């Protein structure tokens, strides 16, 4: 997704190496995606649904 839009940055975070981040974003299962610090997507979704959720985040 980051590669498809110049406005999107995507970071894969290894949760066990950064427990502070995992705590901050309340990661209790993986994969968990946090978009603009707000929207949370749990687990793997079908592509279209995932993109809709990711783009549903409010403007920052």
């Amino acid at each position, binding site marked *: *997704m*980051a*590669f*498809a*839009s*110049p*406005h*999107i*940055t*995507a*970071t*894969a*975070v*290894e*949760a*066990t*190496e*950064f427990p502070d*981040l*995992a705590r901050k*974003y309340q*990661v209790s299962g*993986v*994969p*968990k*995606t*946090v*978009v*603009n*610090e707000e929207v949370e997507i749990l687990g793997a979704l079908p*592509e*279209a649904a995932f*993109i809709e959720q*990711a*783009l549903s*985040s409010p*403007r*920052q």
Partner: protein
Amino acid sequence: MSLLSAADQQKLREAFDRMTRSVRLLFFSQAIGCETCGETRQILDELRGLSDRISVEEINLVLEGDKAKQYGVDRAPAIAIAYESGSSEPGGSGESGRSGESSGSGGSSEASSTGDGRMSDTMKDSRIRFLGAPSGWEFVSLVQAVLLAGGRESALSAASLDRLRAVDRPITMQVFTTPT
């Protein structure tokens, strides 16, 4: 001892052979308090050894804080993926000037481009990052990201790509994973 089996190395070599752009892995490390920097360095060294189109630049998070900031990186180990922008992209400059080794530290300044898969200094940020050692599933993701930056077509549907092209505001995604 290498982390990758001979069979895996061969498979990766073949996949990387199809890359049409050079890819640079910017590896942000720090000397103290980074338990997995050594492992990350070894993984990246092995990747680099599998293709002339892959290069690795190690950046000290502390000493080169400006560069880390430029890529929005504040922890180590972290990897940012950059790729050669130029002739293989529609509308790219397609410069034919070439030079030998690039001088200087890269960065955002313009420099000459090279042909034949040699590293150009006009690298573009893919905005794909990895935080933590890329082992286990993260390694698979890293390889996919390298192939994508290296010119492979996106795995997303045309509809998804259209949707993403219409994005007009900054979106930051963090995907939390574990190695197993």
